[in-house]
């Protein structure tokens, strides 16, 4: 429809609604193939990573478990778990959510969907090769960068294609305002290649000497959480919480301050992992200051999310998306405040080298990021497949298994880790006594891991059913409008004038 013809249409409120519904459906359709590809691959790696996690967890209190398989020794299984979760699950589900959000917020179709599927294929081939390399003993002894060196260029190439598609889509935007989620998303898409390429060059390809490697390592590892996963999780929360409850964020002003404060402070926080190490004192102190200053962006997010939902908290009973994302948002506040406190020397001298740190890491990557991503998928997937989720009961089971599992995990290891640290600092306590003290908590962790695995299997089952359009056909509550209906209502394409 030309502008002239569109101008003759009488744009009633119903037709105006239909126009926007059709536009949204068209944009969602443009993202369908690549985003569902990323989601399907990420769910696969979630199950692989969970299996490896259970194996590693059980070996902590039952060392003979699977002892005849050299490729499943603790060191390999644990590292393969970390990397399949980092690059197979979190990175990919984050990319899928990011691409969908970028198209939605730009009000423009996603560019190069088929090329993105190719990039997803390259990414997954690299992760598969990396995981086989780690399990086969070709692992690099660098935390979060254990994949064999040949994997890094493949991941970087795939990421460049994805980032270019996102930028081009952004260039096509019809919406003039850059919503706060877009700031976070472009931050993540911009920061990850910087972190990943620099860390690989300085550690694996042109290695710097001695302790500098450790500082680059923790600069990268901590920023993977803070400058890649965190912005994507927050972008999702800043879009979906207001969208689901139908209210704008409490203070948009604070949200913008939060983004720029994160960009300013987070980059310097990672070196607090090396407190007590042979590093320049000023570098450690600088990192501690940056870690504590992170309370500013965290405070803005906490205030915003709390005040946006405070009068509508009961809606978590009625929305799977909101339930998971509110849990994730609350966990973000908790893990961030804990992280700031943990960076203080007096706290760190107890918590360092203990299970306390493991619990903290899972509070961030799982309770915050993964739960937020589950909530996002509950919102996005039906809009892409045009099919509602098969079972409310299974969604609730997924939530309680994962929420209960991660809380049990966090509490048991936090408790065990703190007392483990105190005993490690006491030269009169025999080391074996400390090991024996932690055993019941390590068994509890394995129980928690099984709960999480049950939740993941339930989610994977729901996801496959949705892809296959199995279950009772429903239109509500996702409001799966039929594009043809909209076309019938407003004639043909063309914007309201």
């Amino acid at each position: 429809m030309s502008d002239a013809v569109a101008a003759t249409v009488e744009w009633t409120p119903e037709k105006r609604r239909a126009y926007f519904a059709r536009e949204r459906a068209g944009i969602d359709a443009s993202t369908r193939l690549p985003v569902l590809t990323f989601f399907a691959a990420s769910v696969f790696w979630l199950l692989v990573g969970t299996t490896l996690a259970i194996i590693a967890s059980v070996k902590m209190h039952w060392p003979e478990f699977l002892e005849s398989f050299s490729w499943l020794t603790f060191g390999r299984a644990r590292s393969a778990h970390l990397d399949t979760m980092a690059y197979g699950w979190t990175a990919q589900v984050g990319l899928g959510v990011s691409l969908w959000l970028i198209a939605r917020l730009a009000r423009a179709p996603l560019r190069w969907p088929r090329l993105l599927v190719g990039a997803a294929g390259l990414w997954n081939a690299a992760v598969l090769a990396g995981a086989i390399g780690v399990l086969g003993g070709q692992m690099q002894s660098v935390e979060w960068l254990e994949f064999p060196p040949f994997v890094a260029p493949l991941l970087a190439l795939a990421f460049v294609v994805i980032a270019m598609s996102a930028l081009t889509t952004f260039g096509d935007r019809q919406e003039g305002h850059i919503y706060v989620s877009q700031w976070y998303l472009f931050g993540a898409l911009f920061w990850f290649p910087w972190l990943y390429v620099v860390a690989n060059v300085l550690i694996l390809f042109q290695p710097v000497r001695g302790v500098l490697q450790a500082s680059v390592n923790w600069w990268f590892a901590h920023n993977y959480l803070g400058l890649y996963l965190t912005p994507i999780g927050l972008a999702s929360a800043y879009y979906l919480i207001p969208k689901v409850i139908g209210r704008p964020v409490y203070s948009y002003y604070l949200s913008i301050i939060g983004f720029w404060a994160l960009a300013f402070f987070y980059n310097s926080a990672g070196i607090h992992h090396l407190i007590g190490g042979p590093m320049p004192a000023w570098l450690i102190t600088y990192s501690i200051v940056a870690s504590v200053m992170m309370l500013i962006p965290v405070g803005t997010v906490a205030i915003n999310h709390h005040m946006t939902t405070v009068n509508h908290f009961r809606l978590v009973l009625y929305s799977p998306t909101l339930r998971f994302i509110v849990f994730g948002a609350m966990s973000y506040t908790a893990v961030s405040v804990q992280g700031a406190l943990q960076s203080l020397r007096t706290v760190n001298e107890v918590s360092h080298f203990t299970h306390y740190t493991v619990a903290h890491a899972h509070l961030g990557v799982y309770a915050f990021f993964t739960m937020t991503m589950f909530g996002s998928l509950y919102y996005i997937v039906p809009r892409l497949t045009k099919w509602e989720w098969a079972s409310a009961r299974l969604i609730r089971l997924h939530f309680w298994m994962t929420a209960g599992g991660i809380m049990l995990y966090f509490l048991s290891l936090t408790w065990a880790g703190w007392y483990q640290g105190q005993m490690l600092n006491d030269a009169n306590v025999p080391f074996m006594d400390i090991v024996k003290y932690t055993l019941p908590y390590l068994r509890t962790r394995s129980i928690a891991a099984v709960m999480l695995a049950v939740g993941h299997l339930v989610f994977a089952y729901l996801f496959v059913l949705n892809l296959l359009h199995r279950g009772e056909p429903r239109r509500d509550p996702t409001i799966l409008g039929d594009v043809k209906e909209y076309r019938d209502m407003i004639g043909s394409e063309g914007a309201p004038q």
Partner: protein
Amino acid sequence: MHAVYWVIYGTVILFGVTVVAAFVWAIRTHQFQKFQQGAVSIFDPDEPVGEMTDGFPGESGPPPEVLDCDQDELSKLDPPDPTVKGTSIRHE
């Protein structure tokens, strides 16, 4: 100079300049103005402020008292309608 320093200083300059450029661009395109209008830019006439857009499959939504809200307050939060010239931030 060793290649390592090129990597470190090169990326610091490249990314530092990019961040400053993004900040300046945001100011010049008025991204830091009219925050309330920005906050409601995710809503549209089909999914307006005041309407819940998610729920459990096969279940009725929340009862009215849970969604209860002051309609006058909500009307002040109507999103800018991009189809009406002059209300979209982009056209200003």
